[in-house]
């Protein structure tokens, strides 16, 4: 793997202190910008493999468990090459001092397995060779005559065997092999097989500890009344009635953190007044008794209608070109048939099941943070800043995450807990209500898309232009590179279809709405708009939507194979069941390619019912097919919920939605039957946490068109008249 080619073998693996055999592992960062330039230690490990004297194998990682099963997949990579007995494999506690590691701790971008596929296998293989060498030495035989098998080393000629636990003490004294031999895939015992997740037993009896479940001696609980208007401030407040409530200990004003400072991951919080009490219910009662007057600031007139009008106005002018092929304007002018359309998508809320929360304990000598976080590096930095202690003195204790989806890459809840703990001199847990969570999110940007396409007299597509107007997520992180927010154009600039003339442009709309990374990020809207408009091109060309895509993918065999598998398994080309329509869509994101075919009907009130979704996926080497299926189901539900219902709207500078009554979620009775088919592939390892999400909205909308002739160009879908 080229991503760690700048590191020598010696730096990649070392033995480490500990009982039994312990290997320290250096895993490379997913992106070059995630390399910590200030890391003092040339070998700064960020993962450990420990085989205890009792034979227990513990894999300790720097990644969060937020539902996708990444830690289990990572442990599988180690266990495969180690020839470990899966029953002996455990996950260690997520590491607590990100400043000491050589890469940033951030679980996101569907990157966990992709960045670790080879290094973790090598770590397991190195330990296996050390155990084999220890056994061979004990028997006085050649290591080549011995074989590791599920937690034991066997001397093949004599049949003698020793369990790993009898070998770890000797193995720990041996040199770490510089270049251990990896198993050929044909001999894989776990990789590519259905392996049970290691965290399931903790999640069926209430024993898994999420952020909300953290208990610290002497802890107080806080609920915060935040300014309802984006960017507003506290003008004045009266805490007397709140303080009169039983259990209320403190009332603390928190200033706005505007989040405009740039840097690795700038935190942003709303201004507010916190009520700190012995229990959550007391804090909430105290909060309801607060009297706060707000300075609503410059955004009090912001509305969704105004944002939409701004988008339309900005779309009139050319944007910054993200990709250009051929001469699109000339080709459009010469086209036998020209079509144009405008698509629009709303702001979206993450809606993790566990509302935002964090616990902090600031002391003069340091700070502990307990948080359900995707971003330990960011959490540690923000805690150090607001606690006023050196970063090395902050310990970040990662709990289970009750969903992440990108929301927990933000560190606002950590900043709040740390400020409050410092202010009141006790450990404080901040708990957001669902209403807080809905109204103070980091939303998927709303966006506006103007398309045009041309086809020639024979029905062959000749031109494609796509102009995107959206606020930029990355603006918070510093100046945009070449005026392009790569998250805005991902899934659009890399359109896989072979239009000979093509242009993708981007115009940034400057808006004060807090923006964030929402599962699949730019592909969440670009897959919807491009795959819908490709369907429109098929209609204009008089072609079947699957056949047109197939023809346009002549130079993209991987994409084409995925598309064909989904179509074949869904019965494309045969009549859909009575009363149903089929739609197809394809999207590449995070290194994986997914095609989905949705089968849709309309209920009597015009509600869309999705019965069946057939998914095909090429994610490179298969780690755990059970997890791939689970993530396709998960991605479909996430994207389908948004397509059918999701919209955050703004009026008078305020988010109008508040809870699951006005921001509805897909329910069990609405769950389509999701089928997953995996394309055998030796392509580079791709991600699995996000790629299932982008294709579902266009697949469903294309199916609605097939069924009704109505083209959905604005989400959410709502009811069909």
């Amino acid at each position, binding site marked *: 793997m080229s991503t760690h080619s700048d590191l020598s073998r010696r730096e990649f693996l070392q033995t480490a202190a500990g009982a039994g055999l312990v290997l320290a592992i250096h895993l490379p960062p997913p992106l070059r910008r995630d390399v910590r330039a200030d890391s003092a230690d040339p070998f700064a490990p960020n993962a450990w493999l420990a085989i205890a004297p009792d034979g227990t194998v513990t894999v300790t990682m720097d990644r969060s*468990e937020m539902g996708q099963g990444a830690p289990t997949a990572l442990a599988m990579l180690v266990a495969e090459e180690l020839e470990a007995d899966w029953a002996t494999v455990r996950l260690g506690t997520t590491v607590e001092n990100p400043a000491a590691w050589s890469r940033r701790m951030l679980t996101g971008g569907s990157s966990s397995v992709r960045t670790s596929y080879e290094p973790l296998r090598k770590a397991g293989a190195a330990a296996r060779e050390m155990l084999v060498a220890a056994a061979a030495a004990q028997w006085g035989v050649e290591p080549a005559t011995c074989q590791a098998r599920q937690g034991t080393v066997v001397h093949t000629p004599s049949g003698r065997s020793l369990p790993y636990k009898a070998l770890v003490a000797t193995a720990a004294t041996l040199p770490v092999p510089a270049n251990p031999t990896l198993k050929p895939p044909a001999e894989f015992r776990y990789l590519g097989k259905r392996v049970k997740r290691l965290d399931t037993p903790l999640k069926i009896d*209430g024993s898994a500890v999420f952020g909300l479940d953290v208990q610290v001696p002497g802890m107080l609980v806080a609920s915060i009344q935040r300014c309802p208007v984006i960017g507003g401030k506290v003008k004045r407040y009266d805490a007397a009635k709140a303080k009169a409530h039983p259990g209320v200990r403190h009332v603390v004003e928190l200033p706005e953190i505007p989040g405009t400072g740039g840097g690795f991951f700038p935190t942003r919080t709303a201004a507010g007044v916190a009520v700190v009490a012995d229990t959550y219910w007391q804090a909430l009662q105290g909060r309801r008794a607060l009297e706060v007057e707000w300075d609503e600031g410059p955004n009090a007139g912001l509305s969704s209608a105004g944002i939409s009008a701004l988008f339309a106005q900005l779309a009139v002018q050319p944007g910054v070109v993200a990709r250009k092929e051929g001469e699109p304007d000339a080709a459009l002018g010469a086209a036998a048939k020209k079509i144009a359309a405008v698509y629009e998508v709303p702001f979206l809320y993450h809606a993790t099941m566990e509302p935002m929360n964090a616990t902090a304990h600031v002391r003069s000598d340091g700070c502990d943070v307990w948080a359900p976080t995707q971003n330990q590096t960011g959490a540690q930095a923000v805690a150090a800043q607001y606690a006023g202690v050196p970063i090395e003195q902050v310990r970040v204790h990662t709990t289970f995450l009750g969903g992440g989806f990108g929301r927990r890459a933000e560190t606002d809840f950590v900043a709040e807990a740390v400020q409050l703990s410092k202010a009141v001199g006790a450990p404080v847990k901040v*708990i957001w209500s669902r209403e807080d969570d809905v109204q103070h999110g980091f939303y998927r940007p709303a966006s506006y898309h103007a398309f045009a396409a041309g086809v020639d007299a024979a029905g062959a597509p000749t031109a494609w232009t796509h102009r995107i107007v959206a606020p930029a997520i990355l603006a918070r992180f510093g100046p945009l590179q070449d005026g392009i927010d790569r998250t805005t154009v991902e899934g659009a600039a890399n359109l896989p279809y072979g239009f000979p003339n093509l242009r993708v442009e981007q115009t940034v709309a400057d808006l004060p709405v807090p923006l964030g990374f929402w599962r699949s990020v730019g592909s969440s809207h670009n897959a919807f708009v491009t795959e819908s408009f490709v369907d429109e091109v098929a209609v204009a060309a008089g072609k079947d939507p699957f056949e047109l895509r197939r023809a346009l993918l002549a130079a993209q065999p991987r994409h084409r194979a995925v598309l064909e598998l989904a179509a074949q398994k869904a019965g494309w080309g045969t009549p859909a069941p009575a009363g149903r329509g089929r739609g197809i869509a394809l999207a590449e994101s995070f290194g994986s390619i997914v095609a989905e075919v949705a089968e849709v009907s309309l209920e009597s009130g015009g509600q869309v019912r999705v019965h069946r979704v057939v998914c095909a996926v090429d994610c490179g080497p298969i780690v755990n097919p059970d997890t791939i299926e689970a993530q396709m189901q998960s991605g479909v539900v996430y994207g389908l919920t948004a397509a059918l219902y999701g919209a955050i709207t703004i009026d008078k500078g305020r988010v109008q939605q508040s809870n699951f009554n006005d921001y509805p979620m897909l329910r069990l009775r609405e*769950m389509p039957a999701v089928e997953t088919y995996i394309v055998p592939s030796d392509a580079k390892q791709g991600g699995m946490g996000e790629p299932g999400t982008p294709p579902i909205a266009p697949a469903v909308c294309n199916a609605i068109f097939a069924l009704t002739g109505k083209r959905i160009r604005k989400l959410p879908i709502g009811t069909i008249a």
Partner: protein
Amino acid sequence: MAPIHLTVNGKLRTVDVAPDTPLLWVIREHLGLTGTKFGCGMALCGACTVHLNGTAIRSCVTPISAAAGKRVRTIEGLSRNQSHPLQRAWVAEDVPQCGYCQSGQLMSAAALLAKTPHPTDADIDEAMSGNICRCGTYQRIRAAIHRASKGV
């Protein structure tokens, strides 16, 4: 404030809290049983589902006064050693993803099976559609309930 007595997972407990305090927060903060989760505070998501005298209820909108003298069962009391057929089925189907909603899902499913040992898909739709799962484990939840109803 007067002491309130209730039975939680077979043990008699006494709490001294404001009578309007939701059962959810008494279970979590006063009794230290954190397996029951907070999701919405409005009985919209089911994360807080427990059994009150055998019936599945949303503890986030149930004042502690309404539980006085009654039997409460939480996820921690569903079985000893994860032996409830639903827990075994949940492992067999590897249902949980993030896991946050799963206590509520299991308690809703347990109430369903107690009344309807062999539920149809329609029964499952009816009993389980008040429990939101954002990770999309619905398909496996359905399969696991059917599996549990067949003796796992």
